[in-house]
């Protein structure tokens, strides 16, 4: 895949360096300011919400006198206090800010208490007496299907003739896989701090991945123009998709109270409240029938992907679309029908979470492959290879089931390299030998690929803006549309700007994302932050460089095209001057030293009604081998070794990219192992704090965790310095952990195990105790 790089992709210094995160020195000193750390304005008030204790029913009456009378309470706000729109939501406006006449999940906000302290607000919120007319909640997939309960109508993707292909196939099987949800568990909970300003304006500090949507939601709830509202976010203490849409709720309620009371108001959710209020990764159920040949090659696939979307639509449409597209992962599907059911259930509204439906689609697809391999008694890796998309873009086997041609396929190359470096074949044999000998501890091994489409499937979102100032002493400030949630996008964009100007990264000041500096921002999501904003910042830098070059050229009489910016100097032929001097001279000559930059992704276009088109600009590739062991007496499992090879293109910052790969992998592992969301029969979430909801800790990550960025990786598209997005794809490498556990279960009992995700000790034990299936 190596090609000659165009001049635009050649780097000289800042880009490609393994620089520390721009805030690392602040993080370690406790000096990085998160929203709750901003010194509070005098008289700041605090919010807690009263929540529904019933999952579904009519709201008959709310008796709030005791709440109002409680110590410290300044106001109690309900839907009647909203001057603007009473319902919010990113796509469909189907979420009442406060319940109006119905309740749809346990945790749904009924009212907000505004008090002089957070503790006073929380205490008071518990004093409400609420009467409901309860209805049986819809929680289960089948209940929802029977009740025709959908947040969006069913959708079907059809390519080829799956039914006929399956009927004609020499082998067939059908199966079902349940996949659990996942709480984002950003370490910093949801928070917003609203400060009223003169003339009805509002400044909101919000821990949000989507400042613009937060701004608009605040404006709509307040009934004012979005120009009245400024949303600022310097950094988030983690987000993972959980602050893409749901942050707006907290901002809107804080702003509502601030506008009403003309005081600064903070809304910081207690961890348990955060769990109860906000959505999580979608739970999915995949039912499928697949026809295949003796080599394991898939001939036809019919699948129903049902997801529990919770009480509102949120982003469930796009999440489910991505699941449908990623069922193929790296495999060619010629004849396929996938039905997508976006079920409305009386739970928190499922929403964005790193991978955005991709993980569920990919795991479903990998499960199909694993079933085929076990059915045919072949090594799953051989079956994977038999199904890979063709690396030849002109081949019919390079066409995805959603109508996009794969032009950058490197999966076979990458998997082959990993297979060798991880010594897959030798270890496969060693694992089998162990299992033949050991009765109680079984080992499992699996290699799984990832092929993840990069771009927002809502094509209009693939745009970004930047604002770049050069001050007349030569110092530089960059602002852009992306938000920083730990992924290092600020660092990467600063590297791009430094690279363009030939400066050191520390000479570039990065400032908080702010809707009054860069407007109409897309969410920082879909792994797109550095891709989009790096390009926008580059455009701004190039604009300023062009002006400076023209200025130097006209002053000194050489060709502007020969001017270079390097090592803190501006040069053309033998002529050279320090950057600061050139900037100063340009300022004196009244040259504008500020510019915006804008970028829009080329080539993409997608029809969400048919799920056909080119949703993605390019694909990111990777693969992982996991070795696990299970204890068949208790069902406990342990990950022993992981080998990862991941394609980040030409890395903008290998240290940050490696961090994304490792962190994503571990998060995916948590989703598939210890992280279990349990709702009881009433629809109450029982795992709503870290005491009951277990994300991985250090000991869950093996010392043998060998992560390599693929050296030959390079983006064939003209991405920012030929890098590739890295935020989400590595999460799905963790499918290898799940399938390795399944492999170990198969060793314990033979046949095709019935193991659902997450593979908790209980599910593993259950899968081991069930007798061998055919």
């Amino acid at each position, binding site marked *: 895949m190596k090609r000659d790089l165009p001049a635009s992709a050649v780097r000289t210094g800042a880009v490609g360096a393994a620089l520390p995160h721009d805030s690392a020195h602040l993080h370690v000193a*406790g000096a990085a300011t998160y929203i709750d750390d901003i010194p509070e304005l005098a008289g700041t008030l605090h919010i807690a919400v009263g929540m529904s204790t019933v999952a579904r029913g009519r709201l008959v009456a709310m008796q709030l006198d005791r709440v109002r009378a409680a110590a410290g309470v300044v106001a109690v706000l309900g839907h009647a206090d909203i001057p603007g729109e009473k319902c919010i939501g990113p796509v469909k406006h189907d979420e009442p800010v406060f319940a109006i006449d119905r309740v749809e999940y346990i945790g749904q906000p009924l009212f907000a208490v505004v008090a002089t302290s957070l503790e006073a607000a929380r205490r008071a919120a518990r004093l409400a007496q609420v009467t409901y007319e309860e209805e049986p909640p819809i929680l289960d997939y089948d209940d929802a299907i029977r009740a025709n309960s959908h947040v969006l109508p069913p959708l079907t993707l059809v390519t080829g003739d799956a039914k006929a292909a399956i009927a004609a196939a020499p082998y067939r099987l059908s199966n079902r896989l349940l996949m659990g949800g996942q709480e984002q568990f950003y*370490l910093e909970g949801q928070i917003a701090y609203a400060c009223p300003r003169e003339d009805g304006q509002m400044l909101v500090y919000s821990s949000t991945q989507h400042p613009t949507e937060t701004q608009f939601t605040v404006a709509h709830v307040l009934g004012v123009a979005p120009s009245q509202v400024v949303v600022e976010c310097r950094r988030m203490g983690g987000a993972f998709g959980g602050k893409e849409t749901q942050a707006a709720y907290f901002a809107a309620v804080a702003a509502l109270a601030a506008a009403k009371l003309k005081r600064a108001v903070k809304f910081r959710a207690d961890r348990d409240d955060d769990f109860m209020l906000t959505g999580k990764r979608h739970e999915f159920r995949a039912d499928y029938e697949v026809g295949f040949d003796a080599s394991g090659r898939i001939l036809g696939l019919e699948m129903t992907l049902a997801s529990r979307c919770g009480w509102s639509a949120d982003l469930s449409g796009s999440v489910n679309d991505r699941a449908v597209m990623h069922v193929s992962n790296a495999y060619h599907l010629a004849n396929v029908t996938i039905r997508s059911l976006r079920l409305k259930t009386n739970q928190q509204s499922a929403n964005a979470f790193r991978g955005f439906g991709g993980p569920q689609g990919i795991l479903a697809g990998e499960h199909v492959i694993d079933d085929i391999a076990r059915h045919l008694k072949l090594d799953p890796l051989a079956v994977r290879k038999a199904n890979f998309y063709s690396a030849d873009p002109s081949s019919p086997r390079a066409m995805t089931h959603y109508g996009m041609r794969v032009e950058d396929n490197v999966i076979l190359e990458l998997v082959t390299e990993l297979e060798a470096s991880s010594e897959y074949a030798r270890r496969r044999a060693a694992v089998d030998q162990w299992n033949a000998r050991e009765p109680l*501890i079984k080992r499992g091994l699996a290699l799984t690929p990832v092929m993840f489409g990069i771009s927002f499937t809502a094509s209009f979102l693939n745009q970004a803006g930047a604002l770049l100032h050069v001050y007349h002493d030569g110092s530089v400030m960059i602002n852009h549309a992306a938000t920083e949630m*730990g992924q290092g996008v600020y660092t990467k964009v600063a590297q791009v700007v430094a690279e363009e100007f030939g400066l050191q990264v520390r000479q570039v000041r990065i400032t908080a994302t702010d809707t009054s500096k860069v407007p109409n921002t897309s969410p920082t999501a879909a792994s797109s932050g550095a891709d989009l904003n790096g390009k926008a910042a580059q455009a701004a830098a190039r604009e300023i460089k062009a002006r400076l070059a023209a200025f130097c050229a006209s002053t000194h009489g050489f060709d502007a095209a020969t001017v270079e910016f390097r090592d803190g100097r501006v040069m053309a032929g033998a002529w050279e001057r320090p950057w600061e001097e050139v900037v100063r001279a340009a300022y004196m000559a009244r040259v504008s030293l500020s510019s915006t930059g804008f970028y829009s992704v080329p080539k993409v276009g997608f029809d969400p009604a048919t799920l056909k088109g080119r949703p993605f600009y390019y694909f990111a590739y990777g693969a992982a081998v996991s070795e696990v062991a*299970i204890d068949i007496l208790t069902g406990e499992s342990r990950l022993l070794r992981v080998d990862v090879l991941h394609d980040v293109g030409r890395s903008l910052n290998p240290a940050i990219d490696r961090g994304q790969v490792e962190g994503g992998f571990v998060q995916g592992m948590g989703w598939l192992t210890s992280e*279990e969301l349990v709702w*009881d029969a009433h629809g109450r979430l029982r795992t709503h704090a870290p005491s009951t909801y*277990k994300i991985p800790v250090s000991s869950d990550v*093996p010392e043998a965790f060998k992560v390599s960025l693929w050296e030959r990786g390079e983006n064939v598209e003209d991405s920012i310095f030929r890098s590739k997005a890295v935020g989400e794809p590595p999460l799905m490498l963790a499918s290898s952990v799940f399938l390795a556990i399944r492999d170990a279960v198969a060793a314990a009992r033979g046949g095709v195990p019935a193991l659902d995700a997450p593979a908790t000790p209980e599910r593993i034990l259950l899968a081991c105790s069930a007798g061998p299936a055919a």
Partner: protein
Amino acid sequence: MFPQNKQLYTKLIMSDPCMKFLLNGEPVSVTDLPPTLSLLQYLRQNCALPGTKEGCAEGDCGACTVTVADIDADGRIRHRAVNACIQFMPALHGKAVTTVEGVAVGGVPHPVQQAMVDCHASQCGFCTPGFVMSLYADFRAHAPREVTRQEVDSLLAGNLCRCTGYRPIADAARQALAVPRSPAESARDEAHEKALRTLARGCGELVLDGAAGKWFTPKTEASLARCLAAHPDARIIAGLTDVGLWATKQLRTFPKLVLVSEIDSLHRVAASGGRLDIGAAVTWSEAMPHLLRHWPEMQEHLLRFASPPVRNSATVGGNVANGSPIGDSMPAFIALGAEVVLRSLSGERTMPLEAFYLAYQQTARADGEYVAAIRVPLPARSQRFRVYKVSKRFDQDISALCAGFMVKVERGVVVEARIAFGGMAATPKRATRAEQALLGRTLDEAAMQVAQEALDGDFQPISDMRSSAAYRRQVARNLVKRFFLEVAPAGEHATALRLADLEVLP
């Protein structure tokens, strides 16, 4: 006034009306203190020190980790990481607290901080101060030393990071903990220790009597007993790792609190007369070496009990007195035949630990009584003992079930059997039918099967978010099998039994 009657406590000990402590080396006096104000709230709201974060307010995430130094019964200074979110401020009277803002030496990042930067160990950074402080606590106590990854895992079991996947943090830990202390740091530490000794000398029994509640920190058992006699309604507290959550999560109020952890005599661990007496206020961190000396079989279990910062506060007495059906110490203690020692103004009584638990969250402790010690018979030669914990996550999780097994085998047959389970009933409870089934038998396959069958009659477990009743039943049976395989292995080939001991295949 609390305690009501001034004569009730010894004149020799001063009573302090105002809470004093060192914050990053500087003395601070706190007046008008609501007794349940957490250290975390105090740091963030009152001191403008926002580096210490709140991630959960229940001791489970470690974002709020700070270090606390105090002086033990032998006059040694101890440094330990604690969770600031569940420490009530008055419990820090006479101690020294260091926060992430206080670790850099003269403006230079501490080796722990520098290693975290160099290893790219922060992404969003929200967990980072907590990791820095867990590592700093270890550095303060032990540096320089070489640590293995496994030791790092244990050290950091109480710190959650959602971003990094831990590898870079573990690298930073290993790098930083091996760095020798700089002279500047040593000088600072000495100055702080001197200040701590001065402060502690001037600190007596803290008595708070404000509108928000009353607080008392007795320094002797006599003082405690008198206080409890006068105030049987007072809530006894020790490490606050249970009670702290009742405040932060359940928003419970406590009109009267009595802290037992400043009483030297409750901190004793003594082996004599064939038994080990563990004072009620001994923390799990302190108890661990003593327990392991006599019962090395408890190693994994003790390391899986909560996390280092929790174990640094949590007491043995608190675990036992709390009597949670899923508490981890009771199955082991009951299996070992432990007794609980209760004292009050009217004297002392002991009872078998299993008799202490009457019903769900109900114990035999009478008004005015406190748990003084746990008394465990030292192991006999004929004794075979194991304790097992099963949970969704290996480290820092609450048991789905927990089992202690002890049998004494003489001349090849079982002469005594004690089996206790947690998570299988409303209290920690003995498996009396299974015990009976084993008596007089040799430890063979047949004995195992009768014990397993008998076990079914011993318990009617429930289903909850940790696991189903069926799983609990099945695993309880399987743990009997594990015990048999471990203490009486059949056949010459030793089967691999524990995931934790497993190595990567070569």
